[in-house]
């Protein structure tokens, strides 16, 4: 008989959300809250807990842009690139972040602290440009304000 090393977090989340297919997204979402991304092993472990195929877990996770399956930093910055933010100077904000963190869109800092991504409309068009850092929205951004926000996170 095969023995597996139990992934404590996955087991805990399965206990919390249940082991039906309906529990899959809440489990994956909570894993992302904890670790910012899903490892292949996480997905295999979730599949085992829910008794479904790992391919189903992978297929579901990769459908959703917020369920990252690549390494992400502790703070995931998602800057809105949809029209209202684009019109109100999103590129200036993006350039400022890139210069400050020394990474490009899609990259993660070498200390695994920040990941910079673009995203579609996050529902703050009247206070554009806007971005999310993990779950927190930041709105009415200016180059000065975004530098200040990043400095705050760098100190954390």
């Amino acid at each position: 008989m095969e023995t597996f090393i139990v992934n404590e977090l996955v087991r805990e989340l399965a206990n919390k959300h249940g082991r039906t297919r309906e529990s899959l997204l809440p489990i994956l979402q909570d894993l992302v809250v904890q670790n910012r991304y899903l490892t292949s092993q996480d997905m295999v472990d979730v599949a085992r807990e829910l008794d479904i195929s790992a391919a189903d877990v992978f297929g579901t996770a990769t459908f959703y842009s917020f369920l990252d399956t690549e390494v992400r930093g502790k703070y995931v910055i998602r800057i809105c690139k949809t029209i209202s933010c684009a019109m109100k100077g999103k590129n200036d904000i993006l350039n400022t972040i890139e210069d400050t963190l020394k990474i490009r869109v899609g990259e993660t800092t070498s200390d695994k602290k920040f990941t910079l991504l673009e995203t579609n409309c996050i529902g703050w068009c009247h206070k554009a440009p806007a971005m999310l850092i993990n779950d927190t929205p930041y709105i009415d951004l200016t180059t000065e304000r975004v530098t200040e926000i990043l400095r705050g996170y760098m100190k954390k």
Partner: protein
Amino acid sequence: MKEKYIRRVDLIFEKVNCREIMEKIMGMEPDAICQEVLDSDLKGRGGAGFPTGMKWRFASKEKDPVKYIVCNADEGEPGTFKDRQILDEVPGKVFCGMAVAARAVGSKSGYLYLRGEYRFLIPKLKTALDEFHRIADEFNLNFRIQIRLGSGAYICGEESALFESIEGKRGEPRNKPPYPTSEGLFNRPTAINNVETLVHSVMIMKYGAARFKELGTKDSRGSKVFSISGDTPKPGIYELELGMSVYEFVEEFGDGDTKAVQVGGAAGFCVPRKRFEETIIGFEGVPTGGSMKLFNSTRSMYNVLHNYLDFFTEESCGQCTPCRVGCQQLLMGIEAVKRGEKNSRYLEELLKLAKTMKIASKCGLGQSVGNAFGSIVENFREEIIY
């Protein structure tokens, strides 16, 4: 002085005592609730505009003992942010609206599906939900609501994709029919409504259908919460009476240099200045889920269209070919015309493709890409080419 045409309304954000509504609905026959909402002519505020009372009645007639109420809070349409404000300011009213629907349909279980981008609202929603459950118990309404989160997929705002997502799957839309009222969530009869629609139903319960109908026009009754952004000196959220023309809207919200208004987001229509006066904002003219974006003469409509197509190319779920390939081809097509690799007649081919997508796509996403594409290309052709 110019007359102000826009009539502001304050119903959606009005504070309401949920107990008062609960007392009322528990004293009414379920069918009477459906009838009252039907009499009000309330149409869905998410954008599609299906009569709410009819949806509820269809679901109520189903024999299945298990039925669901779903609140669609997956507000993803570019330029729409009113549901966030409603959930933030009057969350109890949204749950109360779900109770009205539950009583009308005969459902014991509800889901609120919130887009992942609004996760920061969860603590507030949970507090309001606990309070709601206490009130439901007081009135012996056997109805429980669960909150589910999306994870950044626009398509999950499409009702059947939203069901798939709650069921723990990829958010891929289903074929219709069957419609949600007969086979929705977990293949059970389901009434799915937009956040704002549910809140309107609370106000209809409070003030009656007749009062609701005093506002708006024959085809578009009542008021609507608009999300206004772009080139305007006063972006924000406004509840306005339905039935105004784009001209009246621009007089109020424009910056004096408005050349186009995109009504209904990326999936909606672009109205150029020459059509402002004749175009009514409502189901008789250009319908909208509330997104109103103003563009002034400094904006390139090519950039606007490019942004929308880039959006759709990313957000298409990819399961049906007309939408998946169509979005990509439209995007590459306008780029090729802009670069001069294709001549301007190629735009006619692209318009034909957009029409094909409208006919052949499986769901509302692919079917509506042609709205923005057609209305921008036809009205701003020179900006696309040069």
